[in-house]
């Protein structure tokens, strides 16, 4: 569709140009948005495409954050690539057993099990002070990107410069990868699982195995996003794994529109911008966010992308664009 073909390069251009045009504060604000964009790409594979709503996804975000923290400040590995690799490995190691247990269940039980695992991890991070730093967390030392340390740049310059483009590049790369995954035969099977798991079996879809795969892939994306999230802050703290953080992930996804590939990424950006604006307007920004969420649920369940993509007459058959 031509409107999308126009929108994507435009958005890309805006994102690339942002650090040169926007004041540093706003650029630093975009960093978590980029990180959440990556996290949500993975989350939506599980939710929007496979139909599994996890209320413990923040577990993997926290896992990624703590991995980069341990790697960079405790073990002295400055290379972000190495830390990210470690985070990926950690997420696979954790998501396989957790996934094996969780994907046998659906709907409420899946949500509750994932919530329990998420809180289990949080509890571990919070209580085992000697290992995890307790509620103070673990510091994240400034990493080197592709071997370059940028010693002449101060923290802010590093963040709004090389680090920003690193994150953007990662988002684009991982986004492209996810696009291919979602449109692939594997993606077709995931959507079949989402729509009718029983029939999917009769059509030869390996429901449990593929749910597990989707879970693991989403965990990997979550962990990568988690590492990126922790770096600007310089800290990995237990609240990253708290269940309300998982809830916020769902919020962002629904805000952007989970039925659409680009929805969640849009949701991440809009949420961050919204939260920032609301925070500057009132100390009761959580209330405002709650109201917005309610409005979305009741009035705009298809999210922002649902609004942007003007649907034709609902009764008419919709031409498939290749996404959900």
């Amino acid at each position, binding site marked *: 569709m031509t409107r999308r073909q126009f929108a994507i390069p435009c958005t890309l251009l805006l994102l690339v140009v942002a650090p040169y045009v926007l004041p540093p504060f706003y650029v630093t604000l975009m960093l978590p948005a980029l990180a959440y964009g990556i996290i949500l790409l993975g989350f939506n594979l599980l939710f929007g495409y496979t139909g599994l709503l996890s209320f413990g996804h923040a577990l993997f975000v926290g896992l990624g954050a703590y991995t980069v923290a341990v790697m960079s400040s405790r073990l002295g590995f400055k290379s972000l690539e190495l830390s990210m690799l470690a985070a990926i490995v950690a997420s696979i190691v954790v998501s396989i057993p957790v996934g094996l247990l969780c994907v046998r*269940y659906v709907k409420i*039980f899946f949500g509750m*099990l994932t919530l329990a695992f998420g809180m*289990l991890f949080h*509890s571990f991070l919070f*209580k085992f002070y000697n290992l995890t730093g307790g509620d103070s967390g673990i510091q994240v030392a400034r990493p080197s990107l592709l071997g370059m340390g940028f010693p002449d740049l101060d923290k802010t310059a590093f963040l709004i410069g090389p680090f920003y483009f690193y994150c953007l590049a990662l988002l684009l790369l991982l986004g492209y990868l996810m696009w291919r995954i979602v449109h692939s035969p594997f993606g077709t099977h995931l959507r079949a699982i989402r729509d009718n798991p029983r029939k999917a079996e009769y059509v030869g879809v390996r429901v449990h195995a593929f749910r597990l795969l989707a879970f693991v892939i989403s965990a990997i994306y979550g962990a990568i996003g988690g590492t990126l999230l922790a770096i600007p802050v310089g800290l990995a703290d237990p609240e990253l794994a708290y*269940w309300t953080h998982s809830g916020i992930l769902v919020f962002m996804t629904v805000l952007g529109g989970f039925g659409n590939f680009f929805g969640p990424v849009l949701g991440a950006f809009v949420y961050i911008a919204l939260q920032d604006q609301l925070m500057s307007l009132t100390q009761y920004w959580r209330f405002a966010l709650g109201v917005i969420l309610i409005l979305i649920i009741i009035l705009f369940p298809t999210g922002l992308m649902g609004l942007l993509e003007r649907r034709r007459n609902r009764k008419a058959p919709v031409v498939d664009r290749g996404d959900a």
Partner: protein
Amino acid sequence: MAVFLDILLSGVFHAAVLFLVAGGLQLVFGVQRIINLACGAFYALGAYFGVSAVAFAMAHGAPAYALLPVLLCAGLSLAVIGPPIERLLRLIYDRDEGFQLLLTFALMLMSQDIFRFIWGSTPRTLGNLSLAYGQVTVGPTLIPTYKVMVIACSIAIALGLGWMLQKSRFGRIVRATAENRSMIEALGVNSGRVMVMVFTLGTVLGTVGGALVVPTAAASLDMIVELVVEAFAVVVIGGLGSMRGALVGALVVGIVRSLAVFYYAELEMLSIYLIVIAVLIFRPTGLFGKPLE
């Protein structure tokens, strides 16, 4: 022995309060099939309002031993918030449960700031008012009478609920609505009214729980998010939709926590989560739950 009794009674007290909140959750889930993530908010509201009510009463010369009745009244009077919230939830009854969870999540978010606005960010306590009831001897140990009274209240409420659900006409209607909503309407029952009443009852159970606990714990914003996980542990262990399950689950959670706090503080919540995970794996419908469709 005294130590063990202490731990046990402390656990039972905690269970008594948890039962109320979890019972509310079970009722709402059983009838409306909604999992209320805002249950912690109701609990916190009961606690905060209880503090205010008691402060008000004391300032107007109420004697110290009016504490329990005042708290009970405070909790019960919050029933007024039930109907409007139910109205809101009614809009999403038939939607995908992800949306339902999110709606109650939104309510939870809002409540954090609403309570902050009304009562501020620092936790509110009632100090030592509950000591006015003195202590009672249980075997080799002493336990505050207040805690015993709360346990008694909770048992009374449990019995009352049990009687209502099993023997009263309303209870039959509630159970029938839980089984088959459209059938109930075909039989001429106004299911909308039933929904409002059940939801309000569920809300009140939560607010009363919060009100009763506040002499022994501070009313704080943390309650809103922390209670949810515990209440869910109770519901999972006991089985979704079962009141008996809420009772047993509450006892399990209350006592295990009490034991864990005493022996290995780090394992406090961890042990609960492990039990939850174990239950979900080996017996997903919980101890008393009915299998979901």
